[in-house]
């Protein structure tokens, strides 16, 4: 007789088949009501989180200078819906946010503060959804703590107050993750419907959302291959993918018909390992100066200690937590690979959809440690988050700040016989939002703003500069968003004209004043 040694091994715990929840009885509903009443602390933390977000917004961010991307949002949504769709199709984004923003501005006002409030609403709406997602992975106390960290996040605070689609992307991603987690644990039809709906909305919110969907698809495929989910789940996922494909096809065709954004794609280098690590550094610590950021990311070996500390008895990776890890890293990794293989588009703000998952992963790690160590680390995380937010808001050298308001105020010293030259040309939008001076404003390279932004030709630059300078006394040269020729322009001016003043209103922004005309005698004493 042979004996199967494997029969001595009880099979590893296999998740039991999931069943739809039975319809609750009146008694059970009563119990649920009592439980709801016990959620006062949860409600209180929610209110605290909402208050933190609003406070942060009012205190430091809502009144900050308009940024380039915001100026673009305002300019685009100033047009009719039809023209707006054409502008977005010629751009590198999908239209849902812009359509909603235009509607919002028509109802509540056209200014930048009103536009930013629209983004703030999405961040506020993301608060309860984050809690719901976190509760699927963490205990109640840890999920509540995570909510506070979420609210204090410098990265979220920044983009929650920017007139762009990123807070909307966070909100939609969280909704998608909530339904996806329900799908992989309970598999109810309602969850699938919610998931499909969120996928449709997300696909029209930001292109990066497709990486979120891809990660979810890969994860679900892995579960099916490992026989943790029935094949029917894969069929449903394919159906959702097909539905998204059908929904996005009209836009895709329209996008292709309008040039595939060939003239408006940002000129970005292929991302490096530094860019990849900076994404997570900015997620956790916000936008800090190079010195601070470099110091922080250099301590990456501590992740090795964290990896060792995560080895704990009975600390199994359950299905929800495994997905959170996937959600925190795979979309960013996919974007990194695609940026190398297809076209570079690796910007940390595009990856914002991965931030909530990263927070949950970090909190889960802390919760799995011994109580004193875990709580200490959690407190440190909160302290670092708050510090990052405060420093980001207060530090004028924060790299993400673009103070076109200050630049415009400086340029208002220009007189009618002077000229303001903006380079790169598309930065004229945020500048013009604030500029109320007497001097003429033009761009270098020259741009009529009817066609795509012009390319730089070093051979024609001297002629263009001389043409701009002719008949003027001073050139107020505003340099920002280097497209690869900023130094050429700077060197030409420095070699040919007298620099009379220079200042840097914010990192990456330079205001240089050159004397180009001597027909006007200076008053005695100047």
């Amino acid at each position: 007789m042979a004996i199967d040694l494997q029969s001595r091994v009880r099979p590893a715990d296999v998740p039991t088949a999931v069943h739809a929840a039975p319809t609750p009885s009146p008694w059970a509903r009563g119990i649920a009501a009592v439980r709801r009443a016990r959620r006062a602390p949860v409600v209180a933390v929610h209110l605290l989180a909402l208050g933190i977000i609003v406070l942060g917004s009012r205190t430091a961010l809502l009144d900050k200078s308009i940024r380039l991307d915001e100026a673009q949002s305002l300019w685009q949504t100033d047009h009719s819906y039809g023209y707006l769709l054409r502008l977005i199709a010629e751009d590198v984004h999908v239209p849902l946010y812009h359509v909603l923003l235009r509607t919002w501005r028509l109802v509540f006002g056209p200014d930048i503060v009103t536009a930013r409030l629209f983004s703030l609403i999405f961040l506020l709406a993301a608060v309860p959804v984050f809690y719901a997602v976190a509760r699927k992975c963490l205990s109640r106390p840890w999920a509540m703590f995570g909510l506070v960290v979420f609210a204090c996040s410098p990265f979220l605070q920044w983009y929650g107050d920017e007139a762009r689609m990123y807070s909307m992307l966070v909100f939609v991603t969280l909704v998608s993750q909530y339904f996806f987690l329900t799908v992989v644990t309970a598999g109810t039809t309602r969850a699938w419907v919610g998931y499909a709906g969120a996928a449709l909305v997300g696909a029209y919110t930001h292109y990066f959302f497709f990486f979120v969907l891809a990660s979810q698809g890969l994860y679900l495929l892995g579960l099916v291959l490992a026989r943790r989910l029935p094949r029917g789940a894969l069929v449903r996922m394919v159906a959702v993918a097909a539905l998204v494909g059908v929904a996005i096809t009209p836009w895709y065709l329209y996008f292709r018909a309008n040039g595939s954004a060939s003239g408006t794609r940002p000129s970005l280098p292929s991302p490096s390992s530094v860019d990849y690590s900076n994404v997570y550094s900015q997620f956790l610590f916000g936008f800090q100066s190079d010195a601070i950021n470099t110091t922080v990311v250099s301590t990456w070996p501590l992740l090795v200690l964290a990896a060792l500390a995560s080895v704990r008895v009975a600390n199994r990776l359950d299905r929800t937590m495994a997905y959170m890890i996937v959600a925190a890293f795979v979309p960013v990794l996919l974007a990194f690979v695609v940026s190398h293989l297809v076209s570079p588009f690796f910007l940390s703000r595009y990856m914002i959809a991965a931030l909530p998952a990263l927070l949950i992963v970090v909190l889960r790690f802390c919760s799995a440690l011994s109580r004193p160590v875990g709580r200490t680390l959690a407190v440190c995380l909160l302290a670092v988050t708050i510090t990052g937010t405060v420093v980001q808001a207060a530090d004028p050298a924060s790299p993400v700040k673009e103070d076109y308001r200050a630049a415009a105020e400086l340029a208002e010293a220009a007189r009618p016989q002077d000229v303001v030259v903006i380079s790169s040309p598309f930065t004229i939008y945020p500048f013009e939002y604030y500029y109320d001076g007497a001097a003429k404003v033009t761009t270098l390279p020259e741009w009529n703003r009817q066609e795509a932004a012009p390319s730089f030709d070093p051979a024609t630059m001297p002629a263009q500069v001389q043409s701009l300078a002719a008949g003027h006394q001073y050139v107020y040269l505003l340099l920002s968003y280097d497209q690869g020729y900023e130094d050429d322009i700077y060197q030409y001016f420095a070699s040919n004209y007298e620099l009379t003043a220079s200042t840097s209103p914010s990192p990456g922004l330079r205001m240089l004043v050159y004397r180009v005309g001597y027909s006007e005698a200076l008053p005695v004493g100047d």
Partner: protein
Amino acid sequence: MSRRPVAPSPSALTRAPDPHTFLRYVPNRAFLVGNVVLACVYTLVISFAFEHGNPVLFAALIATELFHLVQIIGYCWTVWGRDARRAFDPGFAAPVDVFITVCGEPVEIVRATTQAALAMRYPGPVAVYLLNDGLVAGKDNWREIEQLADDLDVTCLTRVTPGGAKAGNINHALSRTDSPFFVVFDADHVPHEDFLTEVMGFFVAEDMGFVQTPQFYVNQDQNRITRVAWDQQTLFFGPIMAGKSRLDSAFMCGTNMAVRRSAVLEAGGMCEENIAEDFLTSLFMHELGWKSVYVPKVLAEGLAPDDFLNYYKQQFRWTRGSLEVIFKYNPLLRRGLTVGQRLQYLLSASYYLSGSIIILDALLPIVFLLTGQTPVVTSTMTLALIFVPYMWINLYVLQRTSNFTYSFQAIAFSLSAWWLQLTALAAVLTNRKTSFAVTSKSTHDGARPNFLRLVVPQLVYVALGVVALAVGAAREGLSPSLMANLAWLAVHVGIAVPFVIAASPSRSPRSHRSARPALGSAPAAGPVARSTTSSAAPATPALQPAND
């Protein structure tokens, strides 16, 4: 029927993890393949993709990475699958001698083991023997053991001629007994009633040499040391031994094993020339074509070393014995072993070379801080992008293959044992004798004695790190390279913290946590009663070479 929801029972809320989980590992080959692939990619990248720095440091780094790569590949290969079907006869009834090796253990411990041995069910004749080495080892209670044997009506074989330690004790018994099979229990390893019925049937195969079962520590939750010792055992007696059994490389572990007399006699008896006599005897038996099997079922329960000194001695003994196998009985050169067996024995023994590797890794940040020299020149983040995923999946595979029974403390203790391993290596290379003693199994009152003397090297490392940090900071300020190496220093210090804490003294807690009750089938005599006699003053660490 009432639909009122019932609150979960307290037992459900406070249920401890199942301590037999470590036996229920099911291989996930996707993760194993991924682990190996990432390890190979990392090693290739670190070897060829970066500009080389200091050549000596680079050579040292490559040596360490190759060692890690070999260990990872070897581990994944070992745990790739479990042993499958083996011939088994449930009616097997050949006579069996039960040897209980005794060398000074408290009488009550030996009594419990003996009573349990007498209570074992088996269709054939069973004779229980107490192998009493107390006299030759100079233990005071050797007469009490003889009295115990009389009380329980078992045979006591008291050696009068020393030599060979436990192996010699067993060989002495073999010369005075005649059953075709024998099983061995340490004095504290209490067998279950079904030990013989679960084990002996494998000898229906004519070429079966021995059968090994797990060593389960019933006092695993007693303190930090017992917990760590047990956590380390789960990896070995879980996926590793199951995998070795698949490769016909499961080796004897000194207790809880059944052996065919003719097989061990053909191999020259239990090897008396090596501290790890069981390991080496297994190799000799495999050389002769005998087979072995590991039964992944807890059939006996023993005691873990319960203080740092005993743990340290145990680890030293295992290290010394295993390293001797490499340098004196190189498995790669042994005829009669299959390729798989040669590699498996080499893998098991070479694990104890990791002390050299670990200290090399730990010294790299210090060398940089003191001299500015590095093994490679690359962006620290590029290295991070490759190393961090490799490390995380490596550790996850470790967790998963142990069925989540492994722990950070177990890893930390293993990594912190570098001085112990270096000392043992030096002793092997210089052929110095070292004394080794039976591991004390008595318990303390919860207080931790002071064994900081055993972790002086770790403390020296910390001090050296502080000095090196000051030098490095003075040289280049808070540069990214300095921060990265400071972080590495913190990693190595963090790993050493549990080890140092375990060696440091502490007061007894106000309330003790009681030892977990014996699990599995209880002996007929009832639950095991462990001695609570406090031990004598801790002996001087047996680190100095002993004169013969």
